[in-house]
């Protein structure tokens, strides 16, 4: 699996698993770290980077909403 495919898959997982406590922030954090490290080395295309980072950010927002807003 290429770096780009792996980054995109992590971005998608970050969103899909947003309601799984403990696991969601771990996947989202790992996605961001992975994307940043690949981006730092210049080995990730811009589209994959945006998709993966957006997935991590959106997943984290949904995770927080699940923890604090959708609780009733």
């Amino acid at each position, binding site marked *: 699996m290429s770096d780009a495919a792996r980054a995109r898959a992590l971005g998608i997982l970050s969103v899909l698993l947003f309601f799984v406590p403990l696991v969601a922030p771990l996947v989202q954090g790992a996605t961001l770290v992975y994307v940043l490290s690949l981006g730092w080395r210049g080995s990730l295309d811009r589209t994959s980077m945006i998709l993966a980072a957006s997935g991590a950010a959106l997943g984290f927002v949904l995770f927080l909403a699940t923890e*604090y807003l959708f609780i009733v």
Partner: protein
Amino acid sequence: MDAPSSTPSFTRRTFVRTATLAGIGGAYFGGAHLLLRDARWTPNLSFWVSRGRDPAGPPLRGEREADLAIIGGGVTGLSTALHALLRSPRLRVVLLEAHYVGFGATGRSGGVLGNGTEMGTPPGTEENVAQVIEIVDRFGIGCDLERAPETQLDPYRYAVGLKRTVLGLGGAIHEGSRVRSLEDGQTVTVRGDDFAVRAPKVIVAANGYTPRLGIGAARLFPAHTAAAVTAPLPREILRDIPDSILVMTSGEMYMWGRKAPGGRVLVGAGARYFYDNGLYYKGGGFLFPALHRTLAKSFPALAGRPFEHAWTGPMGCTTDQEPIIGTAGRSGNIVYCGGYTGHGIAMGTKAGSFLSDMLHGQSPPAWMLRPTQSLPGEPLRYIAINTVINMMNLGLYHMDKHV
């Protein structure tokens, strides 16, 4: 000689990468384990207790022999003691409660009575409400019982009334007597900080608090829920509020409610599991505004009426949302019961009579003895339970009524 090129090689780079990932994972879950554990218990801040607390009985000191030891001074434990004493008046019953009678889910519930359980009306539960009414009437328990159009009462005063009845029948109730461990055997020793009770039969009626005793942990878990009550409302607003409130907040979860004494409206909703069977949750800054938003959405006239009193507490749950009776210990003489999923006042009273019958060799209904899905240990337990609760909150998971 060089190794063939097709042989998979475990390079130093792979080793370092794997070790780093394992280290990060271990640190993450280990850190969560330390951070999320909380030994505290949420105090009972319920509206019912705020109206006045009954003086607690004396804690137990020293050693005691009994025919029956009951752990937990909620409706299940008190009903078990009551029914056991009604059947065998000379039975030496010792009930141990960690704080005070009604401290747990009993004294924090809404006091709405219904037959059956969360999932239906299984055999033996069709007359649960009638049984509570019969007990209240027979023993003259003052608990603001309303018989119609909805049957509801003050659950804390119901528990206090049961306590007085049990004491009147000769039972011993020790409040402020927290059980720390059970020593298994033909005679079980129930130990606390300053006491030990030896009894051939022990009923653990601690519901959501049970797993913390190391009993039934694979079957029972505490889920914290919230309730709140408004200030007294004007008659013209109250007129438009139904006596019993049920508002679905997703395909599975709901806000329940009722009219409370003094012209108030009482509502409750939500479920949350805390790490390692945690018993502490005061609600934070989001819970009660979310509950009030749900209330105001259904009853706009209450939008400008903030809650006057709000509280939380753990209720005992099982994976299929039905109460269970189980046995523990090598001799099977430790019996636990719980998991009412918020339907414990009438069902707990009924369960007390089932437990009392078991002392005389009678079996409870088979469904209460059914096997249930086994819950894993932490951190999988925390992840699994809250994932299901989150999915229910989001309407992504539906549990069919199965009885």
